[in-house]
C-alpha cells in the first residue's frame, strides 16, 4: 500500500477522534438539555442543506480529478481540482454569511452552551475546509505541471473525510431540533 495513502488514513483516524470528542460532548449535552431545542430552532436548515449540496458536488470533482490523475492527465485533474476549490470556497463564503446573520441576530458564541458548541463544531470543520482548499490549490498547481500526481488521490481522501464529518454535523446542528 502506498505510503502516502497510509499516512493520510492515519491523519483521518486522528481527526475522527478529534471530531468524535467534540461531537460526543455535544450530543451528551444536547440530550441532557431539552431546552436547547429552542435555541436550535434558530439555525437555518436550508443553508445547511445548500452547503451539504455544495460539498457533495465538490467531492464529485475530486473523484473525477483522481480518475484523471490515474490516467496521467494532469491538466484535466488540475481543472477538476480547481472546481473543487470553487466548491470549498463557496462553502466557506456561505458559512460566513450564515454566521454573520446569526451574530447580528444576537446569537453569539457566548449566548448559550448550544451556540458555543454550534460555533466550535462548525468552526473546527470550517478550518478543515479552509486547510483543504489551500492544499487543493497547491496540488492543482502541481498537477498542471504533471508533478506529484499521486497527491490528487491523497487530498481526495482527506476531502471526503471533511465531507463525511459534515454529513453528521448537518443533522446534528440543523435538523435535530
Amino acid at each position: 500500500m502506498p505510503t502516502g495513502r497510509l499516512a493520510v488514513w492515519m491523519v483521518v483516524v486522528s481527526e475522527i477522534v478529534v471530531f468524535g470528542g467534540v461531537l460526543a460532548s455535544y450530543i451528551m449535552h444536547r440530550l441532557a438539555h431539552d431546552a436547547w431545542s429552542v435555541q436550535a430552532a434558530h439555525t437555518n436548515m436550508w443553508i445547511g442543506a445548500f452547503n451539504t449540496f455544495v460539498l457533495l458536488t465538490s467531492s464529485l470533482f475530486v473523484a473525477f480529478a483522481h480518475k484523471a490523475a490515474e490516467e496521467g492527465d494532469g491538466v484535466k485533474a488540475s481543472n477538476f481540482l480547481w472546481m473543487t476549490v470553487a466548491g470549498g470556497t463557496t462553502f466557506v463564503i456561505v458559512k460566513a454569511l450564515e454566521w454573520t446573520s446569526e451574530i447580528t441576530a444576537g446569537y453569539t458564541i457566548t449566548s448559550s452552551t448550544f451556540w458555543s458548541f454550534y460555533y466550535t463544531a462548525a468552526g473546527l470543520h470550517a478550518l478543515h475546509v479552509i486547510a483543504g482548499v489551500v492544499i487543493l490549490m497547491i496540488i492543482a498547481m502541481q498537477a498542471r505541471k504533471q508533478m506529484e500526481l499521486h497527491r490528487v488521490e491523497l487530498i481526495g481522501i482527506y476531502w471526503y473525510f471533511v465531507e463525511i464529518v459534515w454529513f453528521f454535523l448537518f443533522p446534528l446542528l440543523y435538523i435535530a431540533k
Partner: protein
Amino acid sequence: MAETLTAASSHGEHAHGEMSFWSKYVFSTDHKVVGLQYMFTGIFMGLIGGFMAYAFRMQLAFPGVEVPGYGLVSPVDYNALVTNHGTIMIFWVAMPVLVAAFGNYLIPLMVGADDMVFPRLNRLSYQVFLLSAIVLICSFFVEGGGFGGAWTAYPPLSAQSQYNLTPLGSSLWLVAVGLEFVAFLIGGINFITTAMNSRAPGMKAYDIPMIVWMIVVASIMFMASVGPLLAGAVMLFMDQNIGTAFFDPDRGGDPILWQHLFWFFGHPEVYVVLLPATGLVADIITVFSRKKLFAYRTVLYTVFATGVLSFTVWAHHQFVAGIDPRMAHVFTVTTLLISIPIAEMMFVYIATLYGGSITLTTPMLWALAFIAEFLIGGVTGVFLGASGADIYFHDTYFVLAHFHYTFFPIAIIGFYAGISFWFPKMFGKMMNETLGKIHFWGTVIPFNLIFIPLFVLGASGQHRRIYDFSHFPNLSAPWQQDLRILATSALLVMLAFQSVFLVNFVWSLWKGRKAGKNPWKSNTLEWTAESPPPHGNWSELPTVYRGPYEYGVPGRDSDYWPQNEPN
C-alpha cells in the same frame, strides 16, 4: 511507489555532499539528527523539571526556608512548580526521550531503512515540539506566573482566571500542551508508516525488534486517544479566553466532562510511554543474557491486550471525583484486568533470564532495575484501581509514590538504559563502565529512599499539592517531618549523582574507546551500520533472514546470529 519516492527524496539530500552546520544539525531531515535533537531537548527539559522538584521538595522538608538557587517558595510558586514539574516530566521528558528520540533514531535503523518515509514531516514534528517547549518556558515568566492548577488542569480552576489568578499562564500552558500533541501526532504517523512500509526485504511481522513494535503500538494508541483531549483543549481555551461555558456548571456546562476528556487520553498516555521503555528493556536483556526473548508472540499479544484495555480504564482516576458510583464498578473490573497483560509481560522478562549467561554491564543494570522497580509501581497500582481502597488513597502521597514508581523507571531508568546501550551507535564511542555503575547505584538507591517514605506518608493520610503541612495537626508529627526530610535529602543525593552521567557523557564523547560496529554482539540491524551511521545509514540496504533474538542457537560457533546474515 513509496519506496522509490523516499529514496529519491533522500538521495536529493545526499546530492548536496558537504552540508553546512545549519543544514546538517539544525534543519536536518536525517532521522538520526532529529532523534538526537529530541533527546537533547528532553534532557534539557528534564533538568528544568528536576530543578523544580528540588525547589518544592526543599520547601516541604524545610518549610519557609530560602531555597538556595530559587529563593522563597510561596504558595503560588509551589502550585506552579508542582504543576509544571508534572507537565514537563510527562510531556517534555518521557514523551520526547522515549517515544520520539528512540523512535526516530532506532526505527529506520532497526527495520533497515535509509530514513523515515517522510523526512521533512519529521523535521516539522521536532520544530513544533521545540516551539511548544519554548511556549511552556515562556509561560513561567508572564504576569501572574506559570499555571498552577495541576497537570490535570481541572476546570473551573483552570478555566476561569478569577479562580486561578494566572490568566496568561494557564492559556500558554494549554497552547504548549496542544502544540506538543500536534508534534507527536505528526511524529507518530511517521513511525507507523515507516515501520509498516519501509522494512528491509525479508523482515516479517515477527522479525521486528520489540522496541519498534512497542513504539508503533504506542503511536497508534496516542493517535487514537489524543483527539478528545485536543477537542477538550480547544473548548477549555475558549472557556478561558472567549467566555464560553463548556465547563461552567452555572451556564449549562459540566466540569466533569473535562475530566473524562482528559483521562480518556491520560490513561492510555501512561501506556504510550510505558511501552517503548518495556520494548528497549526487552532488547537489552536479551543481548546481555544471550537469550532468545521468551515467547515473542506472547509478549506481542500482551502489548495488544494492554493497548486495547488501556482505553477502558480511564475513570479509575475519577472514582471519588463525582462520577456516578455505579460506574466505579465497571472501571474497577477493567482496571484490575489490565494488571494481567502487564504482569504477564513482566513474567516473560523474568523468564527470559532463565538459562542465560548474564553479564551485568551498565545498560543491563538499568534494564534489570527497570523490571525490579516497575514491579513496585505495578503492584501498588492495584490499591488504587480497587475502588474501595482508592477512597482512602486517592490524591494522597501513596498515589504520588505509585506513579513515580512507574514513571521514574519508564522515563529515567528507561532513558539511561537506552542511552547507555545505544551510545556506541549514536556517537561511535563506548561509555565508561565504572562511571556508569557509580551513576547507576547513585541514582537507584536514592530513588527508593525518596519514594518509599512517601508511600508511608501517603498511608498516614498525607494529601497532595500542599506547600506546608504544619497547618494539619495530623500531618505534622515529628516522624512525618523526618520522613519528608529523608525524601528530600535522597533527592539531593540523586540529583547530585546525575552530574556523574553528564561527566561520563562528555568524557566518553571526547575520550571514549572506539566502539566499532557491534560492541555488544547484538543481532538487530542497527549494529550492522557504521557507528555512528552516516546519512542514509547503509551504503547497501540490508536483507533480513531471521528474528531479532537468535542468541545461543545450538550448533553455532558464535552465540549470536545477526538478522542480516544469510543462512
